[in-house]
């Protein structure tokens, strides 16, 4: 059973493996090895029999082949409405066939499945809302990704991504020391402007435990500083855990379920160790989905809930503005047409549509907020969801996928897009780079800081 040095059925579990695989630039050797990778049909069929229960089985069986899902898929829309992009076709020709053939499939088939699962579906779950039978193809593609991952048919970046989570428990090589140092550094930097500001690490029994996306300490630590400023101004008793601070899950995109569990349990342990009243995650959709919406199930928590109430940043911000913990200076509100990106992962997957609009009502001058069409749970994926943003092999397809969001934004006539999700933020940045439509985009934190009405005693004293 030939398995490659990089492309194989074994997850990356050591730093050495990780570095070696990273050293294979662009996955050149990795994809070459994939051409010779054997399919372990027995294991594949065994996994299907064990994990494919009545929901998925029934979905595959009763799909009426009516084609009503076609228009619901933005990838179908932006790819010239080719029938190969019909969600039902995409899942029937991959998972459907795999089941029909009882796992007796070949390398070529698996590579086709990989391409379909990662470049023709972002698991945005929009089709599920438009199927009369309630068939959610996004859920099934997620399942298919798990099967493909276990057989080694996974894009290079996501094999590495899952490996990162296994080795560092973070999507990037940010160690616990790096993280704590970044927090200290950011606290120091910010304290000049905000006297008394702290980023308390491992404080027990705080009101809030804050968790984030590893990209923040790695690439934009100012985001942590911004979170600290807002908690500081709001007078919150908060903390960050030294261990269990990273709530994203590239392993969820990769279909590495074992790793998903390990990571989320790590975050939950931090909650159990520090006993905060509640946890708050950063502005990131998939991180929220991983730790709050799906995570409890990976961790085997029967009530489907994290060990303490765990909310998304938009929920905390709306609450802080509502209760007056944070006050907006009306003169500084946004006075230009502005639109809002609804992240699939917390809007369609957890219904957080109204709180984001409540925030808008505080920070945007009435009359300037323009809704995208469609919006809320009917909104389209940013174009880069489900790992699509990060996969070099499918960059071209991803760029085509961005066109839907580009058109939606252009139709609003706005030059400013609020995107309270890392992934959407990245996709919108990329679409501006690719298509140059002259827009700006922002998380909520910097916008809100810019328009705060700060109480006198929190301002630096003039020398």
């Amino acid at each position, binding site marked *: 059973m030939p398995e490659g040095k990089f492309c194989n059925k074994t997850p990356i579990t050591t730093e050495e493996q990780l570095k070696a695989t990273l050293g294979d630039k662009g996955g050149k050797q990795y994809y070459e090895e994939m051409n010779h990778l054997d399919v372990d049909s027995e294991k594949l069929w065994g996994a299907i029999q064990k*994990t494919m*229960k*009545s*929901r998925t*089985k*029934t*979905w595959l*069986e*009763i*799909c*009426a*082949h*009516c*084609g*009503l899902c*076609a*228009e*619901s898929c933005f990838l*179908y829309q932006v790819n010239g*409405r080719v*029938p*190969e992009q*019909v969600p*039902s*076709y995409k899942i*029937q020709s991959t998972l459907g066939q795999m089941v029909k053939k009882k796992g007796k499939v070949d390398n070529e088939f698996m590579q086709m499945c990989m391409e379909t699962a990662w470049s023709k579906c972002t698991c945005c779950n929009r089709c*599920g*809302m*438009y*199927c*009369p*039978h*309630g*068939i*959610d193809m996004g859920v099934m593609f997620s399942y298919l990704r798990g099967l493909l991952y276990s057989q080694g048919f996974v894009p290079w970046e996501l094999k590495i991504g899952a490996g990162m989570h296994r080795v560092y428990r973070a999507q990037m090589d940010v160690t616990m020391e790096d993280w704590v140092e970044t927090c200290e550094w950011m606290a120091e930097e910010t304290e000049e402007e905000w006297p008394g500001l702290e980023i308390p690490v491992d404080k027990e029994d705080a009101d809030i435990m804050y968790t984030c996306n590893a990209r923040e300490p790695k690439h934009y630590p100012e985001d942590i500083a911004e979170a600290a400023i807002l908690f500081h101004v709001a007078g919150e008793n908060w903390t960050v855990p030294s261990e269990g601070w990273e709530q994203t899950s590239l392993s969820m995109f990769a279909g590495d379920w074992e790793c998903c569990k390990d990571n989320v349990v790590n975050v939950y342990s931090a909650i159990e160790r520090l006993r905060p009243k509640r946890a708050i995650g950063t502005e990131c959709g998939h991180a929220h989905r991983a730790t709050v*919406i*799906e995570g*409890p*199930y990976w961790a*085997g928590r*029967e*009530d*489907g*809930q994290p060990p303490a109430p765990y909310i998304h940043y938009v929920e905390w911000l709306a609450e802080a503005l509502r209760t007056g913990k944070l006050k907006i200076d009306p003169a500084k509100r946004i006075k230009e047409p502005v639109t809002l990106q609804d992240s699939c992962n917390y809007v*369609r*997957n*957890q*219904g*957080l*549509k*109204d709180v984001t609009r409540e925030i808008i009502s505080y920070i945007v001058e009435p009359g300037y907020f323009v809704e995208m069409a469609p919006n*809320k*749970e*009917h909104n389209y994926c940013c174009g880069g969801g489900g790992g699509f943003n990060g996969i070099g092999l499918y960059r071209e397809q991803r760029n085509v996928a961005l066109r839907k969001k580009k058109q939606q934004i252009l139709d609003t006539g706005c030059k400013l897009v609020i995107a309270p999700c890392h992934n959407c933020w990245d996709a919108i940045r990329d679409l501006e780079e690719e298509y140059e439509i002259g827009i700006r985009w922002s998380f909520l934190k910097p916008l809100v800081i810019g328009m705060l009405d700060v109480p006198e005693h929190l301002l630096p004293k003039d020398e």
Partner: protein
Amino acid sequence: MYDFLTGPMLWATFLVSFGGLIVRAIMYVKGLSWQLDRVAYRPHMSYGMRGAVRSILAFIIPFKARLWRTRPGFTIIFFAFHIGLLVTPIFLEAHNVMLQKAFGVSLPTLPTGVADGLAWVCLVGGLFMVLRRIAFPEVRIITTAYDYLLLVITVLPFITGLIARYEMGDYNFWLTAHILTGEIWLLSLPFTKLSHAILFFMSRMQLGMDYGIKRGGMKGSDMAW
């Protein structure tokens, strides 16, 4: 032949058909897995049931779900087809006469003209379903011979029934053909994709629970199906 088809065979058919559908419903529920499906069914049953009911209602009431509003033409044909398919046989006078004979009870019956009309609606609806499978590339690509076969199985009792009803050709032959095709249709229900007669409700209920419990329901945010 007639006696056999309307006697023991009919009973066997009913037993297998309705019994089979019930078994499928039970198997569906038994095959759910809170951890694999990632839905905490039991601990949040009330949220779940609320979501389930909303999800079913949105899709059985014409134009309630956004999907139905985006496709008005299809929606009308689809509902007409299904209403004709279900209402006609249950409330047909001839069927209720048999029911009366067997049990001494019968349901209210449709006036002949209405029953004829509904049967024709069903046939025309079925024809449109076939035509759109051929005409639209997004439907053509997923359509298989099996889909056509199921449509044929479904409309044959109506075709044979109408021929018998208008007494075209040999009445007895067409009546027998009608009973036979009707029984084939009933027997196909639990074993083919026609099981959606019950599994539609199960699947919708499950996704409704998913949304009602995990994907917004517990955040007080109902899904705008």
